[in-house]
């Protein structure tokens, strides 16, 4: 969309949206919010950028390879936190052993886990947008 207003405003809005997303990410303990929502908001910023400028421009900020790597990394992080608990002698996904006390352990665990969720959700959404937006539909039935 070659609309100057939109472009300028998107540039202005981009960082606050992401910051807001990260805020939601890290304040999930205290209020509504958490990994999914944060992931979606951050992804929304990228999607907005990709729509107003172009997907190629957005790929400069978030290259597809990195995107894909992070996409897997988020879920892996989640699973890995569980495995750490496993190695330290508790059942899977038990956070008690992660910190000095049970409560601290739970805090660390929840933080990490939510981060993993956020990472995956965000990158999945971006990746979905990349896929859909740039799917080459060719000449056939383009009405």
């Amino acid at each position, binding site marked *: 969309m070659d609309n100057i207003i939109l*472009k300028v405003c998107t540039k202005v809005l981009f960082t606050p949206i992401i910051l807001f997303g990260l805020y*939601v990410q890290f304040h*999930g*303990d*205290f*209020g*509504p*919010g*958490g*990994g*999914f*929502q944060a992931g*979606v908001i951050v*992804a*929304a910023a990228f*999607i907005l950028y990709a729509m107003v*400028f*172009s997907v*190629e*421009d957005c*790929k*400069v900020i978030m*290259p*597809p390879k990195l995107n*894909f790597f992070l*996409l*897997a990394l*988020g*879920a892996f992080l*989640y*699973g890995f936190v*569980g495995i750490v608990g496993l190695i330290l002698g508790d059942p*899977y*996904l038990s*956070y008690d052993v992660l910190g000095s006390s049970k*409560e601290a352990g*739970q*805090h660390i*665990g*929840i933080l990490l*886990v*939510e981060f*993993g*969720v956020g990472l*995956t*959700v965000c*990158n*999945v959404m971006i*990746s*979905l*947008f990349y*896929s*859909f*937006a*740039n*799917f*080459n*539909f060719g000449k056939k*039935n383009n*009405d």
Partner: protein
Amino acid sequence: MIGEIIINAFLVTLMLTIAVFIINTRKVISTILLAGTYSLVAALMFVSLDAVDVAFTEASVGAGISTILFLAALSNLPKEETEEKFNIKHIYAICTCTLVAGLLIWASYDLPLVGQLENPVHQHLAQDFIEGSRNHIGIPNVVTSILASYRGYDTFGETVVIYTAGIAVLVLLYDKVSNSSKPNPRKNK
């Protein structure tokens, strides 16, 4: 709380209206907009039912990302549905749905009334979660503590679901042409 009831009833009816309109729209874009609105109202409903986290998610996921995905997909799809006459299949569908709805409504006579404190749902586990979140985990958002700790495995599963969807779409919409050429950043203005 007569106010709550009014709000609730209003929103529910509103959703019903929107849903009925969704059935008959043939312009795809209107369908999508209406569906987005439906999600928005549902989210409002969630807020009024005290489910702020759900409302948050429904707003961002249901109304936001889903709509954007629909629109993104629509760029590769015909924008209008082909017309279709009322036929036997519709009657069949109506019968099925009426039957199922009847079954559910029949079941609703034995469901606990909405919002009563003595419902089994509130008696059995809820207090344990709230106390546990206050005393054992120590974070104020009970939903987060259940989500990430008590039922952390569900959430893990759900992360994997979204990962699956991501990878599946990636695989399905894989485009040789666009992936072989290196991204060439356009000049920024």
